[in-house]
């Protein structure tokens, strides 16, 4: 048995990896992703270029003079303010009224460890945040070096605490830039890749059926083995593509961040950015969710392909299945904002939603390990159940011509096979 399953896997893999669309997709998708991330950053960067007023409360009395020029360079108008007990409340009010963009508090801790607090209604873009933090750290370091104190404590790069003012609409006070991006982009990629490759299984099934080559193949092997080989083959192609993307991404980060750091030593926060990127554990989970999702959906799609006779029929018949994938995508944003809500937990444990929603919750942070384990167990059951039903529909469907079967008819196929 395994010899012919292997032959199908091999054929499927080699034929697909050779196509122009595979090569194109492998190269183009990362480029598109980079553009999708870069364009909003650039736009956000631009939009902040207008008149922006920030207030700086310098309790040290020595840092502002060293900082001011860089803050101006960042496009901010700087308004110094003397410290008083109620200064924070007053400034917060002014910020909430939209009079100022935010305020920066510099104190002895800033001087000692480079830690400063920036309260704002509008989160600075990563680059701007890093520049600001670099400027503050350098100013503090300069002062320390000019005086007697050593600057060792500053070598770690200091820290800029950004506090979002509460009533800012549309921004989650807890959200953390890079992590949010990982959760959201990861969910989108999972959706895309599962859909694209499951549809590929459907198309291949349909093509074999309409070209009648399937009659020759199933004369020589069990339909179930053909289906299995096809799914594994297409799955291997998709894993190859994803691996290339991840490898390219890792290389880009590994080579890019040090380069950027040496070019712009002031962007000390790049180290943190690097730390926030998904690590090996997350990548493994990502691959796990993909594989589980692909096995579930490709089985369903293969059954859809087997029961149709034309592309048009297949496009219609797959609509309900697409909805199963679009559903969780609609829920991704709310889930990221409140990953521990009961509804989010329940939805993310539903096997057909798990790949996207459980991923989003995990990447968003704070999902107990048992829930992750449970979602994989449930998905494993779902895969077996889908394989059982879809395999039977497939077996009857690929050799059947005529009108699209009705649901009761499908059920007969499942029971008859």
């Amino acid at each position, binding site marked *: 048995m395994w010899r012919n399953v292997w*032959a199908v896997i091999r054929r499927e893999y080699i034929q697909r990896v050779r196509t122009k669309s595979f090569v194109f997709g492998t190269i183009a998708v990362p480029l598109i992703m980079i553009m999708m991330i870069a364009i909003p950053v650039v736009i956000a960067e631009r939009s902040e270029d207008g008149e922006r007023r920030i207030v700086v409360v310098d309790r040290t009395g020595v840092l502002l003079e060293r900082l001011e020029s860089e803050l101006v360079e960042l496009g901010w108008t700087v308004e110094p303010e003397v410290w008083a007990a109620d200064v924070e409340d007053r400034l917060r009010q002014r910020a909430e009224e939209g009079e100022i963009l935010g305020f920066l508090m510099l104190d002895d801790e800033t001087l000692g460890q480079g830690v400063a607090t920036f309260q704002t209604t509008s989160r600075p873009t990563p680059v701007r945040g890093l520049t600001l933090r670099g400027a503050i750290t350098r100013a503090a370091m300069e002062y320390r070096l000019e005086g007697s104190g050593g600057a060792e404590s500053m070598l770690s790069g200091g820290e800029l605490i950004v506090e979002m003012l509460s009533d800012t609409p549309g921004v989650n006070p807890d959200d953390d830039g890079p992590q949010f991006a990982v959760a959201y982009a990861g969910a989108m990629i999972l959706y895309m890749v599962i859909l694209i490759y499951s549809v590929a299984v459907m198309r291949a099934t349909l093509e074999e059926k309409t070209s009648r080559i399937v009659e*020759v193949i199933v*004369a*020589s092997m069990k339909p179930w083995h053909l289906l299995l080989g096809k799914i594994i083959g297409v799955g291997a192609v998709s894993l190859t593509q994803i691996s290339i993307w991840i490898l390219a991404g890792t290389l880009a980060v590994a080579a890019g961040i040090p380069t950027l750091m040496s070019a712009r030593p002031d962007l000390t926060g790049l180290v943190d950015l690097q730390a926030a990127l998904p690590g090996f554990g997350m990548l493994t989970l990502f691959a796990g969710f993909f594989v589980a999702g692909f096995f579930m959906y490709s089985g369903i799609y293969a059954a859809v392909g087997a029961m149709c006779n034309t592309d048009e029929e297949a496009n219609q018949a797959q609509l309900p299945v697409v909805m199963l994938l679009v559903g969780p995508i609609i829920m991704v944003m709310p889930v990221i904002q409140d990953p521990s809500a009961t509804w989010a937990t329940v939805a993310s444990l539903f096997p057909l939603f798990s790949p996207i929603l459980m991923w989003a919750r995990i990447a968003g942070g704070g999902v107990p390990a048992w829930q992750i384990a449970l979602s994989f167990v449930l998905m494993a059951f779902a895969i077996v159940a889908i394989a059982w039903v879809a395999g039977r529909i497939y077996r009857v469907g690929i050799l059947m011509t005529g009108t699209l079967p009705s649901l009761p008819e499908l059920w007969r196929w499942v029971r008859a096979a």
Partner: protein
Amino acid sequence: MTENGYAVRLEGVTKRFGKHTAVSEFDLEVPRGIIYGLLGPNGSGKTTTIRMIMGILLPDEGSVTLFGQDPDVTRRTKVGYLPEERGVYRKMKCLEFVTFLAEIRGVPRAEGRRRALEWLERLGLPEWGDRRVEDLSKGMQQKIQFIGTVIHEPELLILDEPFSGLDPINQDVLEEIVRDFRAKGTTILFSTHLMDQAERLCERVCLISKSRKVIDADMKELKEAERGGIVAVEFEGPDGWIAGPEVERVEAVNGGFHLMLTAGADHQAILRRGVSAGAMILRFDLVEPRLHDIFVRYAGADASGDAGTPTAGAGRTNVGDA
């Protein structure tokens, strides 16, 4: 002959599609090592029968055995099947496509590749191995498909209309290959409506008409039995005498006539009638019947609703219900 002597055996096989009965109570026994023709007009149930042998359709009644065993077991590696509707992987290279078909039937890849190259050479396509199947003409695709059918050296070849779509030269090439396989001991079951091919190739034929078996006989015996069924005449003078109760149909053939007699008719009676009618008879010959004529006689009679009459001694002979 023992049970195992049959490469294919169908017993009482019936297949219905809705109200239409495509194949009705069909028995078929294909002995090993012969070329067996499944003949019949379009829509008579040939392809349905073959699809049931291949397990693509399941019979509503009756059973199918291959080599005396459950066909699911033997079919996978022992049978080569060329379906009527040709299917290929259009994007694959010819050589890879054929090698793949060998591989799923248990031929190791290297061996499959070697055989594929040999076959491409033999069928005059050596330079096409690295081209995609879709780049080939239809006739060439059909050759590739045929290679795919025989690449694993099956013990039984089932070919559904293998000659249709091929030019005469390639029909001859294919015929020769079929004979080669027969010489090696392969059993060949093929369907066709081309009587010339069937006549040249088949050792035994089965004629299906309207879902039922009409004739199932050894080719030689069939011809013997049908001999005397056709009289070729040439004459001068009156021609009214050639029609009569013994004559089913008259066909004009280069200068003379072929008289198709009803079964068991006495041709001497016709001759006597001709002489007494004053015709000058130049030729009065019992001709070897062509399969074509037998085919038309049975399938045509059956199709027009006349009851065909069984011919004595022609092996197993069934007649469709009138």
